[in-house]
């Protein structure tokens, strides 16, 4: 290990996933009309190869990166549609640049809170991200496994939901896209 970097609480960083490549590998399945408390956002994000290499070769860097739980990260997944994640959470990651210039990132970002702004067929919704959601990297910094549970609260007459489950007719009503 060559060092450590700690990202501090005043941080507010935005990373844009470039759009030359489809931002999300598989859009199908992100939106599910499900009959459960929450829905799982299980997908992966990947980006062109060129971004995972630095312009300089011969560097040899490995660092332990920790992120303060009050640091804010915005991840713009689809700029054209306006899809983005805004998250806070603690992370312990290992980042590196090997002598060939290849950039690597491994580790888990555990989310404390956040929102997922999502657009689909003219619909714009802000989902609240549940604590315990994770974004994890297994090498490629631009291929992250996003395992986020998000909830959208709506004030609609939940007749059908009520019919199925009394539990959902409490003070907080959920609607799931």
């Amino acid at each position, binding site marked *: 290990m060559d*060092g*450590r970097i700690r990202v501090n609480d005043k*941080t507010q*960083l935005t990373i844009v996933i470039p759009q030359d490549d489809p931002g999300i590998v598989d859009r199908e399945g992100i939106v599910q009309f499900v009959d459960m408390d929450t829905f799982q956002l299980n997908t992966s994000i990947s980006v062109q190869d060129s971004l995972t290499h630095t312009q300089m070769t*011969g*560097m040899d*860097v490995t660092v332990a990166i920790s992120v303060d739980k009050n640091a804010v990260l915005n991840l713009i997944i689809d700029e054209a549609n306006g899809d983005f994640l805004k998250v806070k959470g603690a992370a312990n990651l290992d980042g590196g640049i090997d002598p060939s210039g290849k950039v690597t990132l491994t580790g888990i970002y555990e989310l404390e809170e956040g929102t997922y702004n999502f657009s689909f067929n003219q619909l714009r919704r802000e989902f609240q991200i549940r604590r315990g959601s994770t974004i994890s990297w297994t090498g490629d910094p631009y291929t992250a496994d996003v395992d986020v549970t998000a909830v959208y609260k709506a004030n609609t007459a939940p007749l059908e939901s009520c019919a199925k489950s009394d539990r959902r007719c409490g003070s907080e009503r959920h609607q799931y896209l």
Partner: protein
Amino acid sequence: MLAGGIINGKASLRELNTNRVFTSDLTIQDFSFHGDTVGNISMKVNNEKQDTYAAEVTISGRGNDVKMDGYYYNAGAQSHFDLNAHLVQLSLKSIEGFTLGELHDASGNITGDLAIKGTMATPEIRGDLRFQQAGFKLTRFNSYYRAQDEHIRFTPDGIELINFTLLDSTGNKAVFDGNVYTKDFRDYRFGLIVHAENFQVLNSTREDNKLYFGRLFIDTKVLIKGISTIL
């Protein structure tokens, strides 16, 4: 405009059939590069001694007082130079254009003396350069840094930094200690320790960089090593 200025002076060529001796005395008034005016440059070059070019270059005006003099010995593969650069004061603002937009809002001065010998392939540069009340913005990050009184040393190994301290806009420090090893100023090998506490790396918006922007504060202690070649 890439470069600007007004050239004045005279150059004379003698003994065209034999030794081709020349003397020149040129001045460039208000020399500018990428929009930043460096100052007035005066160049006196002669080769009254065969295969020996004597040069005296001064940069003045715009807060600059730089003098360089010495010789270039033309001897085929053994061509070499022997120059002394005396920077009484070189204004960072006036050389901002040479960073090709990577730095802006530069202020302060570089002072120091350098002895430059050797060949083009393996120049030997020795001496110290001191950054005094220097400040600049890294364009990509839009973050402002200051170096109040810091120096770098040119050694046989390359460039040595001894606790070279950058301050961010609120006075938090990033300290660079170690060496950037180079023999030819094209290939570099790093052996640098960077130590920072709550240092602001980014202070940018989408206009500065489309891929990442915002505010980023870090603590770090990292050893940067490895070889880098400018492609």
